[in-house]
């Protein structure tokens, strides 16, 4: 996370200006224009129509479900990320490389596949499908499936933030704390956690943004039942397919807003880390 100004030099001539123009132009084209479109479309029928979208029961249900999924997936992945990073960074054990590879797997896995594996496992014709049906538990086309799909997609995000930092810090501080008489929990709370707190928060932010915005994996396992199994991204798609452009773009502004807030918080955090 080195500052972009590091190593920058002032170069005379037109080259820097041209490069800057290209970079800014590209950003305006691929990020600025879409964002502006989202806002313009959302407000095309006035602020009233824009706000009215959010009083729709289905929209509220989608927002609630999105928050619920994030509220389950993010803490679970935070706990997993801490445990995985701790074990990888501070212990030697067999299968360490395998664990590292597995953590990275979702990054290279298509989200659709991440959804599909759960269907294969828990779907009506999946491995555990009949058993689950017998027990009266619904996973696929229900909230548990959505949570599972989201978790699978976001699992590397927090662990990846923590592993390099913890590995760099080593275990000496923990060892020192133990010899000074601290118990395991005290060591974690007073030494380990404070040392990684900014990286952890950073990871949580990224994980949260991805959890709330995930479309592919969730789409496969959701079943698209309005008001029940639609998260905000799915809701946007549904409204768009219904030609409700104001509604679709209004919901999209929420997601876009989330991205902006996440980015801002990330920038502030990165300053704090440095």
């Amino acid at each position, binding site marked *: 996370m080195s500052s972009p100004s590091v190593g920058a030099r002032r170069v005379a001539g037109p080259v820097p200006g041209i490069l800057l123009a290209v970079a800014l132009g590209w950003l305006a084209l691929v990020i600025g224009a879409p964002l502006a479109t989202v806002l313009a479309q959302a407000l095309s029928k006035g602020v009233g129509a824009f706000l009215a979208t959010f009083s729709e029961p289905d929209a509220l249900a989608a927002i609630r479900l999105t928050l619920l999924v994030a509220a389950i997936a993010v803490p679970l992945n935070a706990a997993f990320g801490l445990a995985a990073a701790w074990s990888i960074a501070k212990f030697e054990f067999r299968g360490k490389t395998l664990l590292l590879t597995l953590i990275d797997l979702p990054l290279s896995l298509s989200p659709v596949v991440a959804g599909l594996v759960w269907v294969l496992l828990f779907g009506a014709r999946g491995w555990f499908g009949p058993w689950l049906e017998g027990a009266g538990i619904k996973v696929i086309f229900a909230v548990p499936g959505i949570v599972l799909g989201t978790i699978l997609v976001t699992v590397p995000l927090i662990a990846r933030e923590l592993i390099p930092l913890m590995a760099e810090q080593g275990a000496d501080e923990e*060892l020192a704390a133990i010899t000074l008489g601290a118990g395991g929990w005290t060591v974690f709370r007073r030494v380990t956690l404070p*040392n990684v707190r900014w990286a952890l928060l950073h990871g949580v932010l990224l994980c949260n943004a991805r959890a709330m915005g995930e479309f592919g994996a969730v789409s496969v396992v959701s079943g698209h039942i309005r008001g029940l199994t639609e998260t905000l991204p799915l809701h946007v798609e549904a409204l768009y397919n219904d030609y409700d452009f104001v509604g679709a773009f209004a919901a999209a502004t929420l997601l876009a807003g989330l991205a902006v807030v996440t980015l801002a918080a990330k920038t502030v955090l990165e300053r704090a880390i440095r």
Partner: protein
Amino acid sequence: MTLTIDGVYKQFGRFPALTGVSLEVRDGEFLSLLGPSGSGKTTLLRVLAGLDKPDHGWVYLDGVDFLALSARERRIGLVFQQYALFRHMTAARNIAFGLEVRPRAARPSRTEIAARVEQLLALVQIEGLGARYPAQLSGGQRQRVAVARALAVEPRLLLLDEPFGALDTKVRKELRGELRRIHDATGVTTILVTHDQEEAMALADRVVLMNHGRIEQIGAPAELDAAPASPFVFTFLGETNRLPCEVAAGVARFEGFTAPVICPAHPADGRAVALFRPEDTRLDAGPKADGLPARVADIRGRGPVRSIACQVLGGQRLVAEVAEVAAERFEIGQRVHLTVRRVVLDTNGAGRRGASVEPATAPVRLTA
């Protein structure tokens, strides 16, 4: 307090780190574990600290089984090479940590802790730096904080693992003196692990010289100098020259001179390779002097001692250390005669330094 280490074995995979180490540490003693890397000195320290469990053997502290206690329960002070200060805490909070984490019943009051921290800051001579974070302190200051933090819990044993390794020479020498002063002021039994023979010999009451997971010799620095137990001890503790000789009746015979053999105690007669120190090597410029004929090849050094490298007829280079005043009598190219005060025989080549094996990087392990 007496610490008894009895027959301790420890193996990492196929690497034998400790092979039957027995040792008695006396109350209030300053002991140094000295040896090349891979000699087992750090493993022994980690066993004492409770960070590694030995495969075999016993450790008793005043007759109580020390190995049955966890690292947390042992009440030892441990100082790391890389300080291992809690980076998000000030120096004062670092020092207070061991007191603050005590169970409520045994925890001193806030004011007592604050007073103790001030006292310790003064002991390690960094008064006024208590509010600084580790990143705002120099290496030497950090290590002072680390020592104060370890002493805060009034440890039964202070263990230091290459504590000066990360410091530059000047700070290292200064801190060495400080550490000895702190030891003498607190009376805490101290075990220092180092690979630096000068450091061990300068600081410790007794030096434990280790090699290949075994103790080669235990003794006061002067004893190790005067009566090395093996060619390894002799070569590890200082520079050596090598020269072939003929041994007969405990005396090494060279071309032009003889010298007593101080190790082994009963040398076998016959051909051998002698090791001897530059400071035990004498040069004589007189034309009719006894000794091995040689030619001065180089004169180096500053301060009270000069190193004079000599070339003997066989082409070998031998170094003699000569007092500055005496060195003025010699010049490069001059013919001299070389004699030696005492020698150690290099039995089975064990005296060659660097023959030891580096351990596979010791795995980082938490034993809570």
